[in-house]
């Protein structure tokens, strides 16, 4: 994650920006006004988690938590993650403004996919099956992030297989940690505040469409 400016070709950067803009439009429309604080909290969680690096073996890793963010927020994960990535690139020099679109797709894309794939499993069933679905969400979100990064690099000219191997290898520890962490978070949330996983009510006032209510 955090592909830097200059590492990708212009077409890749443009496609990433277009996809991110589309995702942002959908995400903003889907934010339930009552749940804005949750979006902010999870945005901040991602911001901090992806800055803190944890020593692990000879190297170090940092959490991404896009699986958890996606499970809770669904499409609203796109604006949440975009804001955090924007601040990281502007204030801290991680990533860059040019590749912000690509980075948003790489991080938020898997979040939305995981929401669609594992969301129902996390909401329904007993705590054990919810934990398993949560674990799957944590692992798959990082796996998809790594694949997306490799795809972006491959589209720029790096050979896909070696690039993918490198990125995947670097993300295996994160995958395991996030699997465990997301499963634990899912179990905790279901116990403490199960409404977090409920999708916005169909009639609920939505940020962009508040005037229709």
């Amino acid at each position, binding site marked *: *994650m*955090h*592909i*830097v400016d*200059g*590492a990708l070709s212009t077409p890749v950067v443009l496609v990433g920006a277009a996809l991110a803009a589309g995702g942002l439009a959908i995400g903003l429309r889907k934010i339930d*006004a009552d749940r*804005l*604080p949750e*979006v*902010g909290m999870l*945005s*901040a969680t991602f*911001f*901090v988690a*992806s*800055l*803190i*690096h*944890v*020593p*692990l073996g000879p*190297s*170090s890793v*940092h959490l991404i938590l896009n699986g958890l963010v996606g499970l809770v927020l669904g499409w609203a994960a796109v604006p949440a993650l975009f*804001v*955090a990535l924007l*601040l*990281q690139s502007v*204030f*801290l*020099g*991680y990533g860059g403004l040019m590749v912000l679109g690509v980075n948003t797709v790489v991080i938020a894309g898997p979040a939305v996919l995981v929401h669609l794939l594992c969301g129902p499993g996390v909401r329904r069933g007993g705590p054990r099956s919810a934990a398993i679905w949560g674990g799957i969400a944590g692992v798959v979100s990082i796996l998809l992030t790594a694949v997306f*990064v*490799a795809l972006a*690099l491959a589209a720029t000219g*790096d050979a896909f297989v*070696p*690039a993918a191997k*490198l*990125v995947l290898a670097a993300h295996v520890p994160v995958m395991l*940690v996030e699997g*465990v962490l997301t499963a634990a978070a899912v179990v905790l949330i279901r116990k403490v505040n199960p409404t977090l996983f409920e999708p916005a009510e169909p009639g609920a*006032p939505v*940020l962009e469409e*508040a*005037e229709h*209510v």
Partner: protein
Amino acid sequence: MSDDWFCRGHAGDLARVLLMGLLAAAVQPGPAAAHKVIGMAFADGTTIEGEIGYSNGDFAEPGTIVEVFGPDGEGLGQATVGASGAFTFFATRRVDHHFVATLGPGHRIEFEVPAEELPVALETVLDPLATAEAAGSPPTDAASKPVQVAMIPTARLSAEAIEAMVAEAVGAQVRPLRRELAELREHTGWRDVLGGVGYIFGLFGVAAYVAVLRRRYG
């Protein structure tokens, strides 16, 4: 420190390692940093010394190629990273030196040494007359520096020799400071992280305010 945490956890099982690592990071996110590539270079006479590494303290792999470009994008040559991420490049022209290194997919760094940091003597060497005098012996290493000075007409020798000596002495004094400054600039600390969190909360606070206004006034 974080290393200490890891070593103690290593004796236990994997879960304990992960837990302690997370705890260590939560307790002291001092050098809170992901894997950003950091590069810097300083001129010492005609020798440009640089370092490339990652923000987590790892150095660039020995053998990594650093390409050097001039102000108009023309290639000036390349340098190879040795131990501890260090590389050396010998400047032959007094122009802006633009360094580019690629450390594997997606990891790329660019940095610059401005022409002002290089000795004025290099301009003299490039002067057609002086180049003829120098007879194609560009200063390629430290040993050839005195030779180059000797070829400059005697009237200018003392002034330029003194200038070179002063530049060298000052450079040696200033180099560690510049390195520290460069590291400090890349450092992400508590304040940066908390500031970012504050901005996020503020942004979503404003969004919530707008949402409330919309609902209230339609």
